[in-house]
């Protein structure tokens, strides 16, 4: 629902859309497409198989969109799961050398709590794995630095931390939050891990809505630590912050991104109603570093 509001917003801002590619993630393993009209195609992609899903989207981009480096592309990441839009952005920049890219994101107005009074956007735990395409050079002479962009699901921090066993952990808290009500939630939900991983004193802050702030923080951390540490990022927080970490990983190749893949996502039960919609413009100052 939050994604559909973006179409209206583009119209209201007099941005005319020539072609639309809808991506529907589902539990089936195959990729299929449905051409609704000359200007609208839907690609059905498997939740579990990011590589094949992106390949399917890529085929559509290749065959139907005729993308060039100067093309104007907007990607609405509101309903994408993070591994998907990470690899999608990599594909758009690497394969099509896009000089600019627009990213739309619509914030939720509220987050709904689960029965146990936690925030639960997913359930179960399949594994903690690298996002395909976002590995790094494992330099065993260096120590390990883990950057956790904290979310509301405290257990995910624990999962990632246990699997990486880093020498140094730096959490990034989304502050200011989308809405004042949520300003301390990440810290409260992750308080156990902040103690156990002995990292609360390392905490950095970046706006939950601003990917460029996250990007700047990550650049600073990398500058400080890259000589002695290899970096792993885990984007557990907001999508804009994840976007910032995605851009950073595309610029800085010696960084890997890991994600705690759940068994199930529960987006419809966890977020309701639409808040602000943002359009993030990724332009030459960033894209030139990526390509």
């Amino acid at each position, binding site marked *: 629902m939050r994604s559909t509001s973006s179409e209206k917003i583009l119209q209201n801002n007099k941005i005319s859309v020539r072609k639309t590619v809808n991506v529907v993630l589902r539990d089936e393993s195959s990729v299929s497409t449905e051409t609704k009209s000359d200007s609208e195609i839907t690609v059905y992609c498997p939740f579990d198989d990011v*590589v094949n899903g992106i390949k399917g989207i890529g085929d559509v981009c290749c065959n139907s969109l005729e993308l060039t480096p100067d093309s104007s592309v907007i990607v609405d990441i509101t309903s994408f799961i993070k591994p998907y839009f990470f690899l999608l952005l990599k594909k758009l920049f690497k*394969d099509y050398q896009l000089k600019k890219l627009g990213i739309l994101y619509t914030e939720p107005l509220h987050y709904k709590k689960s029965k146990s009074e936690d925030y639960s956007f997913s359930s179960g735990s399949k594994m*903690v794995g690298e996002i*395909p395409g*976002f590995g790094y050079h*494992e330099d065993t002479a260096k120590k390990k630095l883990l950057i956790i962009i904290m979310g509301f699901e405290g257990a995910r921090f624990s999962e990632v931390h246990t*699997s990486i066993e880093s*020498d140094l952990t730096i959490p990034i808290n989304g502050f200011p939050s989308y809405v004042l009500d949520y300003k301390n939630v990440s810290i409260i939900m992750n308080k156990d891990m902040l103690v156990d*991983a*002995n990292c609360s004193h390392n905490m950095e802050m970046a706006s939950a809505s601003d990917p460029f702030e996250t990007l700047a923080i990550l650049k600073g951390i990398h500058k400080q630590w890259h000589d002695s540490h290899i970096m792993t990022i885990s984007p557990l927080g907001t999508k804009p912050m994840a976007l910032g970490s995605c851009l950073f990983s595309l610029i800085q190749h010696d960084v890997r991104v890991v994600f705690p893949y759940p068994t199930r996502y529960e987006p419809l039960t966890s977020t309701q109603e639409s808040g602000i919609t943002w359009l993030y413009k990724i332009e030459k100052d960033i894209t030139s570093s990526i390509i």
Partner: protein
Amino acid sequence: MTQNVDEGIFLNPFEDINAAYMEDEQILRYWSSPKGFLEHGKLGGVEFVGLLPNIIYGGRGTGKTTVLKYLSFDIQEKKFTLQENDMTLSGFLSTDRKFIGIYYRFDGPLLTSFRGKGIDEETWNMVFIMFFELVLGQKYLNAVERLINKGAIKLQISEKDICGKICVEIFGNEIDELDSLNKIRKKLSSMQYEIEQWKDEIALHKTELAIKPVPKNRILFGIPRICKDTMPELSDKLIFYLLDEYENLEEKQQVIINTLLKHTQYPVSFKVGSRINGLKTHSTTNASEHLREGSDYREVSFDQIIKLDSSDYSELLQNIANIRIKTHHIFSNVKDVSIMTLLGKTPSFEDEALEIVKTSKNHDRHFRGFDKLILKQTTDSEKAHQFFENISFPENPLIEKLNMLLLERGFRIERIRIMMNAYLSNEKNEDHQRYKYLYEKNKLGLLFQLIRDYHPKNKKFTGFEMFVMLSSGIIRTFLELCYYAFNESIFNDSRSLALGKKISDDDQTKAVEKKSAKFMKDTLSIPGDLGPKIYGFVDNIGTIFTILHMNPRLSEPEPTYFSTDYTKLDPDTKKIIDTATMWSIFHMMESMDPKDMITPRYTDFMLNHILSPYYSISYRKRGRTVVHPEYLKLIIFGSETEQQKIKQLVEKNGANFLSHPPITYY
């Protein structure tokens, strides 16, 4: 010291306790050798300093990583330079030193990247083993370089010639540009990098891997052999690849590494650290061969390295804790401070029982129900009063609780009185023996019941011995308990703590309860989608134990473990139990020999003692609950109604019914 406390600087001496996160210097600083560690080349009584590979099994936090890292070249090098106060390593390779350890931890997320992306399994297997060899090869060469640079090795032939031999071994021919070990190492690094780049690229496009594969095993075994043959200082040294967290490997990856273990070549061996049940397969890449314990490798259980029930374990924990305390920025100036003085002695059950009763307004709450029970023996109120006097012994409320228990079980008052008096006066007769047996067997269970009688009083968990007991043989748990206790004390009364005073009972109990609750909560995070199921299972079992503890007749005192016929478990149930054991939620043990030929041999599963506070149950291995595999399945996978029904039946009838197959009224 006081100034530091006033300024708010009071670091917790137990801040860094996970060996995986600790700096090498910290591991060295806090190291305390378990008794008999590597004596006569053995670890836990098992041949270790030899060519036969070993797999060290231990639960999470037992100390496997600490041991493996301690044995590594990185730490041994630092230890040598500190001891000799000399930055060179001349003398490092003396005859005393039997091996050089190369440590490597299997990183779970990295391992998951060797799959899918449209690449067939055979290619992935080839890439994986090549990657693994390249990484270990670099680490080995790095160690040799340092030994040369720091004077431990004096080259007899030129480095160029040695590198020529290595290039022939791994590339098939000499390569002029690779004329130093450093350059070969960098070449291996660039090959590793090619693989990593390829793994990233194939996420978007199918591409061929640019590098030519190196023949298998040439790096892992060939390079050490050449170094041994060309460097006399290495001629009698074994090379141990110390591989940590074997359980992180996928099954097909373990098949590959198993093959290396089975076909290891002199001077190389493998010492592998794994959680219990972490070895997913014994298969090798040769379908007709598999890894056999005894002939291909030897198992070492961490229980063998540190005898958990022994004074050695307690002594080891004291040593480990005291190193941290004595080097602490505040305690180093306090006389006679130690972990024993800071935690104090664990009060006896009797002292604790006395305190509970004496600090209550009403001192006979534990006699509740007496009036009803005594009616079975007399209706005369005067006599009843006399009977009450007969079983009273205010100096020890646990004696009174035992008397109430015996009354509950139908013992005559006179009988109880005689037995109690025989025990108290230490008469050497049958009554004394019997009462003593009943008292020792039941006293902790009675203490828990006493605490419940005096609700909202809570069990205290204080003292060094208590912390040792609750740690369940897991060193890290003990250190975490200390960490939490110090945290509470630093927050509540840092001034007293800074003077070396004992951490208060309340702070210690709060720390234990926090750790216990956290341990339970952490089960939800067990990966592979098993967390919630394991959580539910543990909660059901824990609740059953709690119910049995509160049984007024205490038919089986202190039930803290269950037994089952492991061989009859279905695969799904087995998976849950194996995973729970791997994560140290249960401790698996062979049961005693069965009483007869018909009774199956059971396997015991003891709940981790750290959960005792969470469920208000004992932390001793006393009472066994036999659970039929079918009931175990229901306890794990049954509906909420079925599980509730089981608990209700336990409350009503005790747990004997669980040992038989379930009746189908479910």
